[in-house]
């Protein structure tokens, strides 16, 4: 047993700083250099301890990594081996957790990454750590992480039976069961260690990482320390504000993208509407200003189909009058168009069109039947134009008189109709001077025919002969 102040080689024992299952650790001073070092005394009680001591010494002798303590010397005493190594000032993670409660997740990720990097290094040298636990991880005053105590670490090529020495809480199940342990055993121990030093509730990413490290089945864990290191580095510690910020960026981008698509659609629609407007104006121009009657008529029919209104109907009726005859085909066309547009047309427009159609029948219809069909049809459309008799205009009154007079004569109910009819004829005679010649001719002819047919009736109802003669001569 080494005592305080005892000189072993060139190292003076200052104090005992730890005791393990098969070793004691002392703080020693190098009397030649004056620096403090750690000396691990491995007591040779049996072969197992001997082997473990050797293992540590030889393993550490062959490795050089910033996280691992440097072997300075190996001294053989009477009943033990002494391994002199760097003295690491600070506390181990177990003590740290007891004092401070643990680390937050960001610090755990950093610590885990440092340990995993050292594991990657060790595994690349075919060395398994086998006893990774918080008490074997030192945190120096500078905050650096160091791995200590390679008591049971071993080369994978060696057959060793030290599994019972593994720490129960952090050792993988297969190690506790005495089965062969691989790289995944160290990964399990790392997962258990990180879970132990974690202060707060782990994030979802950390939960997934730890769960995968701590799988009971070695095959379900990370395949290598390198894979675990990559996975650990991928864990993003995110908070609600970060998520909100990301959502805000994405939603704003989507909003502006939709706005852009709507604007482009708007431009497309505007272009289309403008094209249609230009096309409509071209057709209106052709319908109103073309020198060819057929073209005008064709375009008017198109306009009536697309945009029925009194204007286009009355212009079409003017086209029908061009040859001074409103024939049966034209009559059918006009009536079918008007029937189709009954609901599309405004009431006022419809009445105006009906009145115009009535006048068309009255003056232009080619009556082949010679049964006053024109007057009947004119009266029919005038009725549609003026539902109330008091609203009828003079043309409507004349149309009604002419369509009804024959029937009235037969029924003997014609008395009293002639004076009004004569006054209506006079009114349109005075009004006809600005009408087209064919209308004037029709009206003059109508007046003359009426005087010829109903002259006696006019006279009976108070119209003087001189008045009729004077009007005929004028």
């Amino acid at each position, binding site marked *: 047993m080494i005592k305080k102040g005892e000189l072993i080689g060139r190292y003076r024992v200052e104090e005992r700083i730890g005791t393990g299952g098969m070793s004691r650790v002392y703080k020693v001073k190098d009397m030649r250099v004056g620096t403090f070092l750690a000396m691990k005394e491995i007591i040779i009680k049996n072969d197992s301890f001997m082997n473990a001591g050797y293992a540590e010494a030889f393993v550490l002798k062959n490795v050089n990594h910033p996280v691992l303590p440097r072997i300075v010397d190996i001294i053989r005493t009477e009943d033990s081996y002494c391994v002199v190594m760097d003295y690491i000032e600070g506390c181990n993670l177990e003590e740290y957790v007891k004092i401070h409660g643990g680390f937050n997740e960001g610090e755990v990720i950093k610590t885990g990454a440092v340990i995993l990097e050292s594991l990657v290094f060790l595994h690349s040298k075919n060395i398994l750590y086998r006893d990774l636990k918080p008490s074997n991880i030192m945190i120096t005053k500078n905050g650096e992480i160091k791995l200590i105590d390679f008591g049971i670490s071993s080369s994978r090529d060696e057959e060793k039976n030290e599994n019972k020495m593994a720490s129960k809480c952090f050792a993988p199940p297969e190690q506790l069961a005495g089965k062969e342990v691989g790289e995944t055993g160290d990964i399990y121990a790392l997962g258990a260690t990180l879970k132990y030093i974690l202060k707060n509730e782990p994030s979802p990413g950390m939960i997934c990482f730890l769960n995968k490290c701590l799988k009971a089945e070695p095959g379900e864990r990370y395949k290598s320390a390198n894979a675990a290191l990559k996975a650990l580095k991928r864990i993003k510690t995110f908070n609600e504000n970060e998520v909100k910020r*990301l959502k805000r960026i994405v939603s*704003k981008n989507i909003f502006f993208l939709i706005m852009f698509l709507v*604007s482009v659609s708007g431009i497309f629609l505007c272009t289309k509407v403008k094209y249609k407007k230009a096309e409509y104006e071209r057709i209106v121009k052709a319908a109103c200003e073309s020198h060819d009657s057929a073209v005008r008529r064709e375009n008017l029919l198109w306009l009536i189909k697309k945009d029925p209104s009194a204007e286009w109907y009355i212009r079409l009726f003017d086209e029908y009058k061009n040859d001074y005859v409103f024939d049966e085909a034209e009559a059918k066309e006009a009536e079918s168009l008007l029937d189709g547009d009954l609901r599309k047309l405004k009431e006022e427009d419809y009445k105006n069109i009906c009145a115009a159609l009535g006048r068309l029948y009255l003056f232009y219809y080619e009556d082949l039947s010679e049964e006053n069909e024109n007057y009947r049809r004119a009266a029919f459309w005038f009725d549609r134009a003026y539902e109330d008799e008091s609203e009828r205009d003079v043309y409507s009154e004349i149309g009604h008189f002419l369509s009804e007079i024959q029937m009235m004569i037969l029924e003997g109910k014609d008395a009293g109709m002639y004076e009004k009819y004569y006054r209506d004829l006079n009114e349109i005679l005075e009004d006809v001077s600005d009408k087209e010649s064919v209308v004037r001719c029709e009206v003059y002819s109508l007046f003359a025919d009426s005087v010829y047919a109903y002259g006696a009736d006019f006279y009976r109802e108070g119209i003087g002969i001189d008045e009729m003669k004077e009007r005929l001569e004028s």
Partner: protein
Amino acid sequence: MLKNILIRNIDFLEVIFIALSVVSAFLSFYYFFYKKSAGAFIKLMKIKKTIRRAKDEKKKEG
């Protein structure tokens, strides 16, 4: 009525839409390239996926 007003002011409307499209295109590009919205979207998806996985793990443990 509204249709007629719109048709009458179609040129003005077109100018408005062009201005809107230019502004929205600029802002879309700004958010896409400068604010890296695609990356943000992928990050969000990953976070959601991780949360879902963690929930599943918890359920399994439960």
